[in-house]
């Protein structure tokens, strides 16, 4: 495991109150930007049936999966259904940009480096 921090670019890419999916190597991360400016990042896959959480409606600290309405806490990843939770990632705003911290496994790291060097 290796901890890395990535600059995902301007916060303006995400409309206020919505989410957006960023593909980082093999990882799909849903980043949300609350109307109050808070940022959240979780894995973009509902453990129930694989729904794209980035497309969900959010509340103060909660997202609702657009497929079947399962809910997840954006800060802890805990789901509304027993035994369901999603990974959360550190995220912060630095100079108007979104910065995300990831603990990458070796495999993720390779996929990321492959992207960087342009090899498939």
């Amino acid at each position, binding site marked *: 495991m290796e901890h890395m921090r990535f*600059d995902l670019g301007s916060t303006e890419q995400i409309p206020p*109150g919505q989410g*957006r999916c960023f593909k980082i190597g093999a990882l799909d991360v849903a980043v949300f930007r609350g109307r109050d400016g808070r940022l959240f990042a979780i894995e973009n896959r509902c453990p129930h049936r694989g729904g794209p959480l*980035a497309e969900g409606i959010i*509340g*103060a600290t909660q997202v609702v999966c*657009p497929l079947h309405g399962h809910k997840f806490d954006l800060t802890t990843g805990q789901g509304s259904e027993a035994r369901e939770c999603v990974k959360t990632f550190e995220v912060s705003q630095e100079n108007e940009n979104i910065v995300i911290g990831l603990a990458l496994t070796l495999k993720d790291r390779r996929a990321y480096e492959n992207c960087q060097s342009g090899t498939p």
Partner: protein
Amino acid sequence: MDKKKIVVIGNGMAGARVVEEILGRAPDKFDFVMFGAEPYGNYNRILLSNVLNQTQEADDIFINPLSWYKENGIILHAGIKAVQIDTGRKVVIGRELHPQAAAYAVHDDQFLPGKSVEEAYDYVIIATGSRPFVPPMDGFGGEGTFLFRTIDDCGRIAEYAKQCKKAVVIGGGLLGLEAARGLMTHNLEVTVVEAAPQLMPAQLDAESAQMLKRTMEAMGLTVLLDHKTAQIHRVDGRMHSLIFSNGATTPADLLVVSAGIRPITEVASNSGLTVNKGIVCNDQMRTSDPFIYALGECVEHRGKLYGLVDPIWDQARVLADVISGFNPQAAYQGSKIGTKLKVMGVELMSLGQKEAAGPGDEVVVYREPNRGIYKKIIVRDNKLHGVILLGDTTAGDVLMQMFLNEQNVPESRSDLLFGDVKGTAFIRAADLPDGAQICNCNGVSKKTICEAISSGCETVASIGARTKAGKGCGSCRSMIAQIIEAKLGVVSYDPSEHYYVPGIPLEKSQLIAQIKAQHLKSVSAVFQALAAGKEDADSKAGLASLLKTIWPKDYEDQRDARFINDRVHANIQKDGTFSVVPRIYGGVTSADELMRIAQTAVKYKAKMVKITGGQRIDLLGIKKEDLPAVWKDLGMPSGHAYTKAFRTCKSCVGTDFCRFGVGDSIALAQKIERRFQGIESPHKMKLATAGCPRNCSEAYVKDLGAVAIEGGRWEIYVGGAAGGSVRKGDLLCTVNDHDEVLKYMGRFMEYYREHAKYMERTYTFVERIGIDVLKGILIDDSLGIALKLDERIQTAVDAYKDPWKEADIPVYPAQFEGPKLMDALKEAENNG
């Protein structure tokens, strides 16, 4: 561990259910082989009469399609009938049935020549069900005579009925009357013949049966009681009439026999098992052979045979407990029988005995012949021993619980007959046994509810969220409240049940008043003003739709408050792609449009092109990124097949081509769609227009429907449903022309928009408000608001913009973009 092999004989509801129950307990312990004499997956036989009367397609009544067998690794010998179990070698022997043979046939000549099929077994489960009983008569079996038992029977009857005028049904029981109802929809004159002196002898007493007979006769049915058919008389080979044992005759060119059922037991008797009236089973559902079990209509348990589904479900659970080792001591104790049903549209319930058994039995009766209502209860030792309700079964659910759970009845017997949902207080939920099923819609027991209470649920709503109890029809909610009260002493009052949306503590009328008074025009403004800024995810979509209703012109559309479908104007599918349904007004398209649709489907690689139930065309599997280009290439407006709004108006061909049409339904449907397209509402609205009362476009079962009647007039129906719930709409009014249809439909829609709860379909709304009240408000203008409603719906219509126009100018950045690929990712400087 080696898997054991279970061979199931019979692929009806009982056979498939017991396999499901076993799989639920021990998914990997057994291999299954099933023999099914019918060449299908298994289907819900209870709904067969709907297939005959054409309210359902045969495809709709399958419970487990053939794919279910494959997914669960079950080998199905469809069309193969098991004829014998060789208990010495432990193999089941089956033979292939002739495709034309009835699955329940008795004779050996029904089999195809050729090799038999053999399956070795560890255990056998016999679930062969029953066959129709044919009373002895001369001439049955020839052309024009039918039984009513399988899907194929329905098809054969419907086909033959085309050339007939007069049909006779032998059997005045439940199935006979259902068959008669089905035949009447084929425009036949129908006579029901019953050997007993009354209709439905298994469920009704003489007086209620007489009342039912009068109701049936008023519907156009002829009923002959005390008649036994002796002979079918034919002229030139074709059926001419029936001759009865008393010498009377009645003309007939089609005969359906539906006079009860008898268990199918040959495979058991051929195999040396003990068979009496049915296959004899003990409390573990085991036959006289320790490796062979049985359940369902073929079984005799403690001397009783059962022909209803509930006992079969009980038997399936016990059998699965025993055979899977889950609970080898499980015991079936027999079932108390209660039936609640509709015969030809008449509500009926029957429990226990029909007549007093002795002088100690107290009988209470209420009659209202004018409305066809009859209620009778029989009380012994302060417990219910019999109930008959005809014409009005509102008290039925309560009585059923009291009967099944053997509860003491209240002193005032009239409470029993006239209780409503609130009146359930006299059932003491605390007295119910743990296993009692409280929520019949979702199958939740008292035990499950008690566990939810122990784990911290204190309100009816929170128990619903945890267990799904009370989330179906809702009639058990007062019982749930009682269980909470019994356990905790108090029910926490949960006012949130009445909030329009969960995150704002106001009912709809209060919420609307606040929004108007404070001029709140966006969802975030509502949260700021009414919820101290705390945003609630579950409230956003409902608020957005409500704001658009209140401020049609100047509502501030914050897309983050919208469900994804309404952000991008397409319906999200399970793989994250979208479905695109362009509007096709009244279901009328053109060759040009079809070519554009086809070209678009090819260009954007639609994964499926599907004709929808609403007479439109659905392109499935479209990527979000492609939506704007797809809309532009189609060059058609949005069909709104994704939002809580006016969806579509189906139509039949009306007067343009149909030789029966009495009103121009196509032109009306197109006017309706052009006027109301995209109008948002608390839930979706699906409409239809029918050019005559034959109802080909299903207008009677739509949220709003217009049906042309002779004389150029139109009937408007509201609150119909044909989804998970089925309800015929209530007649709101009859009007003279298309413009009036538009006016009253618009008025109803606006009232629904302003007064329905969020996610409340029109069928619940109309039932909740009551059609008479609605007529008063919308037709007689009893509140003086009719013109205001007309004005407000007009404003909404005027404010409509086709959302697919956003193809040119997205309303927010990345509206139609997919995941962002971080291929040039830069590592952030680590400055702390």
